[in-house]
């Protein structure tokens, strides 16, 4: 028999694994329906994502921003809030990092100031969401989505009119070389941004479970009314969650533009940023809103993205199938029957023993 603390941890992991399996199975049926061979597709997906050092590095590179956007969502969810604003916050974060490049600060400062500027920009984009909720009772699902779209067009404007590379109209000026995050392997796009993500994971882990402010966030998430009577200020709590979340999402934009070769610039149409915020929500859900779970879920998602590109060439299955699988996994996770299925399975095993 496992001790109860272990069992408590085992169940969510088993649920996520089962949901992942369901996603892959349904994805397989969809491939069959479109006339693809799911076995060769999944083989190519797997070897493409985790089959070599290079593919591991690419999968980790894809996981880097997802870890951060997932943390944005998870910290809010821990506090009982549904923050889907990472998408817009990471756009402004990435552009703030580019803007700092224009200041031509001396070497170690430009990197640090770029990261800080991105965090501040994310916080600025997140603050009105908290204020609208506290002051006017506007639900954060609605305000974050509206701010995502406003950020989308604001980014388009900045790319085309303000931060434009004078020689290349379709993108912003590149981050200066000294402010770029160093590459870890010569061939792959993996860079020291992964360390920033992992440090953030450690900070959030410490914050949520080792500080009184983090305890207040979790208490409010468990039971808002009770935490209110316990003297936890809802005001402080909402501001805290959205400001920390905004800073992390801004950081996600910064590591993406400062770390991913080859351009180190924000392209028009935001191809390297779009959907990172929304994918982060999926990552957080599969990682059960736990920082450690998020790391594994982000590597899984990052792997799907890397392998999805390979799958596109080899058996020719379109990359978009990856997002279909993600959607099915999330829908499966919403179903508590899965949980009962797992506990029934465990009970049966116990009887057999």
């Amino acid at each position, binding site marked *: 028999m496992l001790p109860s603390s272990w069992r408590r941890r085992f169940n969510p992991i088993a649920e996520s694994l089962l949901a992942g399996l369901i996603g892959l199975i349904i994805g397989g049926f*969809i491939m069959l329906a*479109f006339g693809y061979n799911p076995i060769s597709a999944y083989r190519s997906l797997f070897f493409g994502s985790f089959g070599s050092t290079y593919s591991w590095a690419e999968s980790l590179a894809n996981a880097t921003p997802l870890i951060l956007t997932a943390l944005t969502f998870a910290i809010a969810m821990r506090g009982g809030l*549904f923050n*889907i604003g990472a998408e817009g916050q990471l756009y402004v974060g990435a552009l703030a990092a580019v803007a700092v490049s224009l200041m031509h600060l001396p070497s170690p400062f430009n990197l640090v100031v770029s990261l800080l500027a991105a965090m501040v920009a994310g916080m600025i984009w997140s603050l009105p969401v908290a204020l*609208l909720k506290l*002051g*006017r*009772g*506007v*639900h954060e*699902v*609605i*305000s974050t*989505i*509206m*701010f*995502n*779209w*406003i950020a989308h*067009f*604001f980014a*388009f*404007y900045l790319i*085309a*009119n303000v931060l434009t590379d004078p020689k290349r109209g379709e993108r912003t000026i590149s981050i200066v070389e000294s402010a770029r995050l160093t590459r870890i392997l010569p061939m792959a796009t993996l860079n020291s941004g992964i360390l920033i993500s992992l440090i953030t994971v450690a900070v959030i882990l410490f914050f949520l479970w080792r500080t009184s402010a983090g305890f207040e966030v979790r208490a409010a998430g468990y039971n808002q009314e009770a935490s209110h009577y316990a003297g936890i200020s809802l005001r402080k709590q909402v501001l805290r969650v959205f400001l920390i979340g905004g800073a992390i999402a801004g950081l996600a934009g910064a590591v993406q533009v400062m770390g991913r070769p080859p351009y180190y610039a924000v392209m028009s149409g935001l191809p390297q940023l779009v*959907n990172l915020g*929304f994918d982060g*929500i*999926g990552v957080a*859900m599969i990682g059960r809103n736990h920082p450690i779970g998020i790391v594994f879920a982000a590597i899984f998602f990052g792997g799907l993205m890397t392998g999805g590109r390979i799958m596109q060439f080899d058996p020719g299955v*379109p*990359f*978009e*199938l*990856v*997002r*279909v*699988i*993600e*959607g*099915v*996994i*999330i*829908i*499966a*996770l*919403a*179903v*508590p*029957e899965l949980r009962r299925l797992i506990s029934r399975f465990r009970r049966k095993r116990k009887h057999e023993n």
Partner: protein
Amino acid sequence: MELAHFWGILFISLHAMVPITLAAIGETIEESAGLFNIGLEGILLLGALAGALGAQASGSAIIGLMTGITIGAAVGLIFGVISTTLRGSQLISGVGINLFALGFVALMLTVMGAPGFHSVARDVQVPLIHLGVGSLSPLVIVTVILAVAVWWLLRRTQLGIWIRAVGENPAAADVAGLRVNALRLGAAIAAGAFAGLAGAYLSVDWFGAVTKEITAGRGFIALAIVVFSGLNPLLALLGGFIFGFFDGLATWVATYPGVKDIIPWQFVAMAPYIVTLAVVAGVIGRVKFPKALGVPYMRE
């Protein structure tokens, strides 16, 4: 301003009003019954694809719209089952529906050989009604009728009282002999059907094409309009028109020489979202929502 401009903006506004209002009044039924579907955006997107495919396969715009409704209702059914009998999380399943739709529509567009864009032949699009001052989609009129009909259903019929009862106090409704989950499931299917029609309208009528970004947050704006309306379909119609007006104004400004040189198009394009925020922030205090909104019902 010349009169032609007035008519131009009015007609764009009315056409922009339709998808938001349709999705919003469907969601009004659903939220009245106590379910909150954040997956509206995904249903709109799937409805747009289904509508286009249905119209092309059959050669008929009406069948295209019906296909959109059917697919929307089917997704509404899945969401409803997860939220009622399976007692799942409505927020998580809604997010899943959005992700799935985004992936599936992009996948279909790629499989159909035109990554990102698929146009609908003009002869299977909904024919416009030609008035002296411009052309109007019949769906504009349908939307107004449906808004009134849903208002009447919710506020003036026995079924409407039942729907609102299971949203307000499911336990009491259960004791009174109402089938809580059946009513909620029905409301979820209806909301899906409305969102499916809204999506099909985008592809088979208004834009005449399907893209990955065709919904452009309209499902979420519909959710905001529901908040603005306080679950009154007639106010949802008004909210849809306000949004549609700014959407229409943005389209007009973006194409009108002289104006677009002064205000960059990107700022005009933000207007509908800013207005939605302002409108929701302005009215919210007085709105009262069903007590059991978003809470799965479990018999004790």
